[in-house]
């Protein structure tokens, strides 16, 4: 069958004018939220940020104002963790916002998505892996400062294998989550470019 014959069938596929019920359904749809994974990820980040703020603020205030100021260092530690998490969420949120440009040309949108998704996964991997040595270093100094009788040096031996293990675990997980999608987008881009 020729493409022109398919065109004839295609043009006959007209749908009738929408009824009032369908129009109302469309209006109701505008009040709902997108269920696309990127939109959900954005909402999850906001939710996690709020949850963290609600959980950490009382703890920070208790250690800051209570115990006659003896445990003020803990409140600073919590505050630092909170700031770090917010910086992490901010970077993730910004990358998610940049990821899609539905009004752009298909090819430029694909290129943009591949670029942003790669940056997003790299950031995810570095942040997920970097948290381990960071937590170790913080714990090390707290122990040295608050418990001088305890020697935390032997624990440092575990730092390298745990960090490497975490790196590969994260890389594997990220590849499972996004690897196929990135590959699909790259293939599409290649197909658009090829003559």
């Amino acid at each position, binding site marked *: 069958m020729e493409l022109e014959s398919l065109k004839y*069938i295609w043009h006959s*596929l007209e749908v009738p004018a929408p009824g009032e019920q*369908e129009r109302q359904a469309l209006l109701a749809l*505008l009040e709902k939220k997108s269920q696309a994974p990127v939109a959900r990820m954005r909402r999850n980040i906001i939710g996690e940020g709020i949850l963290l703020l609600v959980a950490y603020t009382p703890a920070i205030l208790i250690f800051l104002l209570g115990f006659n100021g003896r445990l003020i260092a803990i409140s600073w530690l919590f505050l630092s963790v909170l700031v770090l998490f917010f910086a992490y969420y901010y970077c993730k949120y910004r990358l998610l916002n940049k990821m899609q440009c*539905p009004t752009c040309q*298909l090819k430029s949108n694909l290129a943009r998505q591949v670029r942003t998704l790669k940056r997003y996964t790299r950031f995810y991997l570095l942040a997920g892996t970097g948290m381990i040595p960071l937590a170790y270093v913080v714990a090390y100094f707290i122990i040295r400062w608050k418990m001088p009788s305890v020697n935390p040096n032997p624990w440092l031996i575990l730092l390298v294998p745990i960090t490497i293990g975490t790196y590969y675990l994260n890389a594997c997980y990220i590849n499972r989550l996004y690897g196929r999608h990135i590959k699909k987008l790259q293939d599409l881009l290649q197909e658009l470019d090829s003559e």
Partner: protein
Amino acid sequence: MQDPAIQEAFVRLVSEHRGMLYKVCRLYCRSVADRQDLFQEIVFQLWRSYPGFRGEARISTWLYRIALNTAITGLRKRRGLISTVEPDQLPAEWQEFQYPAEKEEQVQLLYAAIDKLTEVEKALTMLYLDDRSYNEMEQILGISQNNLRVKMNRIRDKLRKITQADVYGIGKS
């Protein structure tokens, strides 16, 4: 953007072009539930982009870009081929439009042929079948008109072979 007049204008726009939106959903999703998810997502994306539309591009170019970008590049959770949601369990307003039986057969044949194309080829075929000019196709897809012509010729051959094989069994062992 809660202005009822804007909402009304948007609903009118989507209603006018919903035939095109249904076609995109049918081209890119096999199950009814997936098509409904995609339709919903395209409407969301259109609604989000609506305030930014200043008429610099043709309305059809704008609609095709959003619909095809959402269908092709959208990171979506795909359900398995067997739908877990029965169409008759869905709200009536989301049930698919059904063509008369005699036409449905032709429609099945058409979509079965297009279904064997790649996602990029499907987009090109749809634009061609919708009588879009090569200039507009270039605006939508971002590939040069020369490249578009080469691809269209290839698709034409591919579809001819597919439909010959489907209708007459040519090329099937």
